[in-house]
């Protein structure tokens, strides 16, 4: 019996489908997450229009501001995909740069959300003020929490690549984080349209 250590991602196993285990498992997770957000969104839609005596969505939403934060999140998706691409090509330093940029844009998005929440709060919309308040904060809050987890994940990747960047040996790690980040982005694409834009268009 011989003793060796082997890092998980260093030896690729041959799988029946040709897909890496982690990648397949992670897509299953994302698939499951769609139901999570669908149910939260249903909560928002079922109670739509229940504003009580508090402010209404139309009074509160500032579409230009939210459009900017949406734009930032979309661009962060671009930057993380370039990070994955660089890592796969072996441009370790560039990959690290893109990941750092992504984390930064994630933080900017969270900053916008923090500003929005405080602003709405001062306008009288709280978690308990009305069903609109409840469903809005919980829905967008859980999305924000996902972004926050993503930022922490990206920062850990930077720590992972603190020496020598994120090269081909770590491309798999960057790819999974990238998938998560894109998923958070597409959730926001839906929320931005359904929660904000439809409100403005109605």
């Amino acid at each position, binding site marked *: 019996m011989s003793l060796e250590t082997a890092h998980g991602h260093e030896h690729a196993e*041959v*799988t*029946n*489908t*040709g*897909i890496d285990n982690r*990648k*397949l498992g992670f*897509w*299953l997770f*994302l*698939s*499951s*997450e*769609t*139901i999570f*957000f*669908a*149910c939260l*969104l*249903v909560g928002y*839609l*079922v109670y739509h229009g229940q504003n009580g005596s508090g402010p209404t969505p139309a009074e509160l939403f500032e*579409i*230009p501001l939210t*459009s900017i934060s*949406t*734009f930032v999140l*979309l*661009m962060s*998706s*671009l930057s*993380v*995909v*370039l990070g994955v*691409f660089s890592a796969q090509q072996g441009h370790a330093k560039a990959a690290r740069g893109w990941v750092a940029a992504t984390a930064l844009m994630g933080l900017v998005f969270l900053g916008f959300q923090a500003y929005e929440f405080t602003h709405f709060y001062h306008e009288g919309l709280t978690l308990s003020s009305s069903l609109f308040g409840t469903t809005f904060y919980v829905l967008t809050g859980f999305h924000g929490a996902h972004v926050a987890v993503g930022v922490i994940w990206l920062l850990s990747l930077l720590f992972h690549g603190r020496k020598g960047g994120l090269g081909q040996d770590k491309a798999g790690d960057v790819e999974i984080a*990238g*998938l998560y980040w*894109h*998923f958070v*982005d*597409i959730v926001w*694409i*839906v929320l*931005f*349209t359904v929660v904000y*834009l*439809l409100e*403005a*268009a*109605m």
Partner: protein
Amino acid sequence: MAKIQDRTATQAKVVERSHPTAKTFVGVGLVLFALTAAEFGIVYLEGMQPLVLAGLAIFSVLKFILVVGYFMHLRWDSKLLTWVFAVGMVLAVAIAIAQRYVNLA
């Protein structure tokens, strides 16, 4: 020859079918930017509500597909991953619509 090995071989081919380049991604990023700008633009159009709603729906679905297909690599990856995600998405949309309907009362 075992079926399974054949399938692994064909799928390996699928994976290596084509290589997206950085240009592809930047291009998709630009389209995403344009679509968001368009959404922002049409929201304020007066008096054409059905058109605006249709436009918003189409634009956001397009954005969704672009991110999933290009940024998340589904276009180049094994079809199985597309299936995995599609099943969840379809079920999510179905549950959302059904829940919205039964909770109307």
